[in-house]
């Protein structure tokens, strides 16, 4: 049985660490990780709770396969109520933290209340302590990681931490584990900071057991073979990582640029995955050093890169910032898009530096880049001036300005404090809310909904605000996985989006990486679960669980006031046609797709989850 069936509940107000049994009845309905923690959230945190109050609770949770030998089985999620969106937040991360949690004997760590002083949590198998963090409060994630390893004299300690933005209320602060893997979106790091928790340091030595070891070995080996033989997971992702998409999306005219004013970026090839392979003039080395994998991963899409030693961004960095001068994690497509084409910056090293800063200090690069891009548009229109920016000439394409803004948000100082509130609040404050490319207050990812119609519906209905990882119909509409559909057509996209949303909810609840879904279906996941866990885990049952999770999240959002009323796109997407590429003349067909989506979900025409649907799903 690959669940430990144990939860560590940490009450920060009282200063207590209390073991409790995992609710196995809920496991039957919601599986684990995203689904299960959302169930805990809905039962324990009223939807109207202030996300940054002690009454909010944060759940760090593994899935049933986390810590096993299944491919990519190192995942964990952070679930809480988001301060950025007011909706459910669920951010998923890889690295080695999740498997360490399971090996320490815990399926889930719950942080509730608020510590009266800065603390970190130390967990060594059964022993859990709340310890003072005065010496690391105000430090970066990287400094915190180094300090904790030295203090505990354990090189194998696994650490998840926040940086300065999480302490100071930047609304899209991330939790970074293993130096450069992120529970990145929706401000989960901000919630952790609001509880005065700097880090969680884990050490586990118990291992993970499975229900039927022989069957598990056979089924996970077969599943790994599928990943190895698949051209995407076996060749494409290891070679070029997520950044391989930059040129594809740009060539098809769906690459957002200049705060989504444009859908083609002239500098795309300079900041693409292919560009990361080109030797630079200064030292003859390419940006990319090698690929990297998380725990048990047989795909290894991660990027380990260096910044050009002569690049302006690192000329005045001292030894404390040695990681700027060495290999570190990045550049990934979502960071490259948001910090690059959306701000008009085509300087690969500037983007690599900005991504390193996001890892160093715990920031979501999507929300950061998108907020800077919105500010750039307002600067060029004269809505804000250098008086607002603290002297920064915030024009599109200005790499130094993008970096200055990134550093200010990372320090949560000056103009960075304002940018740190996210695009929706920034644009509203300056009287131009329509320039914020957000849904439910969360910034768009890298796909223009005018050129990839299914993604517009996905952004509008995503339970955690605009997101590509809730229903990645790009796979079908652009990449032909599992079948090719026309990206410019709205017909059939409601059903397609629902299928992706439900299946992704399952992948996010198992403890494995969603990238396996480029090669695996639920037919491949079910036997791995079945061998690892008690119970009868069929693809059909998993599909129903995915639908149940989606509806549970929706019900929570409805009660939080961000249900159907928030299912909308910024007017730029629905009234300003794309000007270039195959989508020229097109706007998002959300108005056509949304009623179909509601109907196919079994919801009311107004977008409410009906009593009949709730009954059918046991909600």
């Amino acid at each position, binding site marked *: 049985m690959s669940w430990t069936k144990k939860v560590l509940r940490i009450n920060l107000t009282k200063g207590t660490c209390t073991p409790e049994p995992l609710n196995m009845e809920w496991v039957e309905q919601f599986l684990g990780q995203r689904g299960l923690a959302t169930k805990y959230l809905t039962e324990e945190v009223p939807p109207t709770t202030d996300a940054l109050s002690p009454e909010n609770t944060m759940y760090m949770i593994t899935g049933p396969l986390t810590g096993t030998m299944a491919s990519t089985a190192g995942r964990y999620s952070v679930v809480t109520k988001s301060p950025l969106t007011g909706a459910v937040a669920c951010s998923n991360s890889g690295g080695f933290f999740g498997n360490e949690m399971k090996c320490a004997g815990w399926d889930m760590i719950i942080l509730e209340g608020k510590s009266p002083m800065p603390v970190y949590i130390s967990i060594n198998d059964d022993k859990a302590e709340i310890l003072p963090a005065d010496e690391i409060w105000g430090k970066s994630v990287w400094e915190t990681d180094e300090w904790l390893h030295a203090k505990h004299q354990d090189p194998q300690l696994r650490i998840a931490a926040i940086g300065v933005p999480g302490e100071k209320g930047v609304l899209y602060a991330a939790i970074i584990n293993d130096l450069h893997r992120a529970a990145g979106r929706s401000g989960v790091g901000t919630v952790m900071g609001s509880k005065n928790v700097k880090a969680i340091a884990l050490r586990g030595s118990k291992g993970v057991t499975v229900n039927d070891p022989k069957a598990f070995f056979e089924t996970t080996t077969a599943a790994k073979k599928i990943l190895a033989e698949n051209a995407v997971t076996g060749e494409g992702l290891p070679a070029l990582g997520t950044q391989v998409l930059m*040129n594809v999306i740009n*060539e098809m005219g769906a690459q957002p640029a200049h705060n989504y004013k444009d859908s083609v970026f002239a500098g795309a090839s300079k900041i693409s995955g292919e560009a990361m392979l080109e030797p630079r003039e200064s030292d003859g080395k390419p940006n990319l050093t090698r690929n990297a994998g998380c725990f048990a991963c047989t795909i290894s899409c991660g990027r380990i890169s260096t910044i050009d030693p002569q690049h302006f961004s690192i000329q005045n960095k001292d030894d404390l910032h040695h990681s700027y001068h060495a290999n570190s994690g990045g550049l990934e497509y979502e960071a490259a898009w948001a910090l690059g084409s959306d701000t008009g910056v085509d300087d690969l090293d500037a983007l690599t530096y900005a991504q390193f800063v996001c890892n160093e200090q715990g920031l979501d690069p999507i929300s950061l880049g998108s907020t800077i891009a919105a500010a750039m548009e307002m600067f060029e229109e004269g809505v804000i001036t250098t008086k607002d920016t603290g002297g920064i000439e915030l024009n599109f394409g200005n790499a130094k300005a993008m970096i200055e803004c990134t550093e200010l948000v990372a320090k949560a100082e000056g103009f960075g404090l304002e940018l740190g509130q996210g695009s929706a609040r920034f644009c509203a404050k300056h009287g131009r809310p329509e320039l914020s490319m957000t849904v439910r207050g969360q910034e768009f990812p890298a796909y223009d909904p005018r050129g990839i119609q299914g993604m517009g519906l996905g952004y509008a209905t995503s339970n955690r605000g605009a997101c590509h990882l809730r229903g990645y119909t790009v796979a079908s509409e652009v990449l032909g996985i599992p079948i090719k559909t026309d990206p410019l057509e709205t017909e059939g996209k409601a059903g397609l989006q629902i299928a992706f949303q439900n299946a992704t909810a399952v992948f996010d609840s198992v403890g494995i990486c969603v990238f396996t879904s480029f090669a695996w279906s639920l037919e491949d996941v079910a036997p791995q679960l079945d061998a690892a866990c008690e119970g009868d885990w069929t693809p059909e049952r998993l599909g129903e669980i995915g639908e149940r999770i989606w509806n549970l999240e929706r019900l929570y959002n409805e009660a939080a006031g961000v249900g159907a009323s928030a299912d909308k796109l910024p007017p730029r997407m629905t009234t300003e046609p794309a000007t270039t590429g195959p989508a020229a003349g097109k706007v998002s067909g959300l108005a056509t797709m949304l009623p179909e989506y509601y109907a196919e979900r079994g919801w009311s025409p107004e977008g409410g989850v009906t009593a009949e649907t709730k009954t059918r799903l046991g909600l």
Partner: protein
Amino acid sequence: MSKMTVKLFASLMEYLPVNSTKSHGFDYKITDSTTVGYLIDDLKLPRNVIHIVLLNGVYLDAETRDETVLSEGDTLGFWPPVAGG
């Protein structure tokens, strides 16, 4: 003879001519009847590796590639199976 642009990405970059630019593209001369299928064979592109083909940004189905005739100024991009997120 007129010209169009061919772009090769990801692992297909190894089929780029030596004089191609950093934007992965090079000029290719066509006649009034040059098809995508002819171009693929002429450039010795591996058919079993080609997955995404975009003609001026629009996806070309595998079934229609061989017969599709190229025009002056077209841009034709090739990728192996790729994905990300």
